[in-house]
């Protein structure tokens, strides 16, 4: 049978299921809107206009930037005329970057939990298992059905964020500052590989549990390393270089291959059927 046709059918069906359910697409739109557009937009706008020295708790951030400048980790900071310039530059180009990983992680978790554990919960998985579609096709379809919307959501948010950041920064810097190399690597390399890891991890979890809620709760645990990354980036302790980002993406890809192997190893048609009886 035509595998591509079956994969396309699975992807179309799952994406249609997302657009048909407001409980699914609403949180997936709200999270990127808040953490990827509204919150960064407000913070950049505020930082560009306020007298930063008058704000007590900003001194920590300014000290961090001073350290980064002296350490030469962000050389551009040294030539900037005011603290506002430096803070705006750091916020727009460094601090919000890890937040953008939350978007594909969140979207991938919801989509995969819904598509696999959701099928079990709605008693439709067995219907799929009775088709001559191979397990390979089924998993490819399911992974793509979560990966495509997750990437689209992340990339669209990235584009909107980029437009807003540039609009806010252009009057200060007189040039288009966004994106830098880090962002490009993040969006085109780390976001897809990170999504893939989250999806495959959720496929593994979803195949073993019985319902959507259970799958989603377990799958949510992958957000924890991200929070550490955000804290590290905000404190300036973990400023990731482009090379480091490429390496992170490569490690994530390697983990994906291992997870993919586990998914196919642990999820034969018989095992999947038995797990839902």
């Amino acid at each position, binding site marked *: *049978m035509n595998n591509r046709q079956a994969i396309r059918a699975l992807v179309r069906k799952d994406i249609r299921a997302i657009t048909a359910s407001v409980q699914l697409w609403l949180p997936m739109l709200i999270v990127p809107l808040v953490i990827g557009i509204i919150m960064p937009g407000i913070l950049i706008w505020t930082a560009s206009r306020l007298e930063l020295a008058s704000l007590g708790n900003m001194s920590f951030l300014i000290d961090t930037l001073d350290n980064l400048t002296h350490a030469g980790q962000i050389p551009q900071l040294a030539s900037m005329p005011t603290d506002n310039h430096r803070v705006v530059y750091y916020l727009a180009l460094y601090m919000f970057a890890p937040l953008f990983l939350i978007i594909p992680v969140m979207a991938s978790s919801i989509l995969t939990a819904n598509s696999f554990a959701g099928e079990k919960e709605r008693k439709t998985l067995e219907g799929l298992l009775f088709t001559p579609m191979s397990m390979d096709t089924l998993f490819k379809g399911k992974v793509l059905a979560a990966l495509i919307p997750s990437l689209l959501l992340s990339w669209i948010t990235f584009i909107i964020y980029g437009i807003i950041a540039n609009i806010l920064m252009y009057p200060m810097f007189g040039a288009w500052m966004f994106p830098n190399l880090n962002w490009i690597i993040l969006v085109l390399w780390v976001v897809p590989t990170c999504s893939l890891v989250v999806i495959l991890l959720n496929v593994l979890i979803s195949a073993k549990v019985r319902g959507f809620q259970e799958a989603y709760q377990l799958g949510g645990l992958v957000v924890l390393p991200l929070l550490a990354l955000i804290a590290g980036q905000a404190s300036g302790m973990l400023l990731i270089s482009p090379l480091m980002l490429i390496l992170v993406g490569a490690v994530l890809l390697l983990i994906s291959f291992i997870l993919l192997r586990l998914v196919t190893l642990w999820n034969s048609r018989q095992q999947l059927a038995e797990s839902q009886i």
Partner: protein
Amino acid sequence: MYMIEVRNISKQFKVHQALNDVSFTVEQGSVTGLIGPNGSGKTTLIRIMNGVLGASGGQVSINGLDPFRETENVLAFCGTLTEQSGLYENMSGRDNLIFFAEAFGVQRAKARIDELVDLFELQEYQHRKVGTYSTGMKKRAGLARVLLHRPSILFLDEPTNGLDPDGIQMVLRIIRRLNQEEHMTILVSSHVLSQLSAVCDRYIFMEKGRKVEEGTEQEIVNRYLTSPRIEIEATIPDGWQTVIGYTPEIVSANKAIFQLQSREDIPLLLRQLTERGQVYQARITGSDLESIYFAIREAHHHE
């Protein structure tokens, strides 16, 4: 060659023994009823025959193929409707059929879907979401789904469950038509035997994961009806007591029940009665499949 051969199949789910040494064969082009109460292992057996579930022991051959090793090839010529219709409730009936046609790799899908929509009288509802369908409509759409790829073997698990009498008749009519016109081999499970007796050539009776009886209706009746009870409606002017060799239960002046030793006694009794009076009706009670079914269940209940 048999279309389905099941040899000594057992299935253990953790502590629960779902199937225990089940063996039977199904001939090509036949309609076989898989009869048994809920929990007797019918659905597990259907899943195993499709290769969707592994067996703990035994072998299955479907049209010469091993469903555990060649699952995809077996599924390509089998159509299986489980108790759940397997349809996506957020999609219309037609969109469901389009999706499954692609999943089954059906050629000229549109024409096939139109044909099935007509066969199952779904024209009016095909664009409505399946979530709004009645049980009967879901069952019909589910049947259409499993017929998309023109299977040569059809497994129907409780296809009449939850249907009203009209719905049951429609499903039975379709089973008969698929068998007669398309020569499909059909295995249909049910816990209500009376609904299937109109369509089945053979029966397999299941009880607690074991096959307890198998055969055509006549074979099973002969096996279990060793001492028939016969209800006679007749006018015997000299009274029922004049019939020699029997002690009837007299229900009324014109009606009596005779407990016979064997089937061979039936013509002897009728001859005596016609010699002594006018016989209007003679009916063997408990000879229908339903009664036999309970007799079989009773016989194997304590095993």
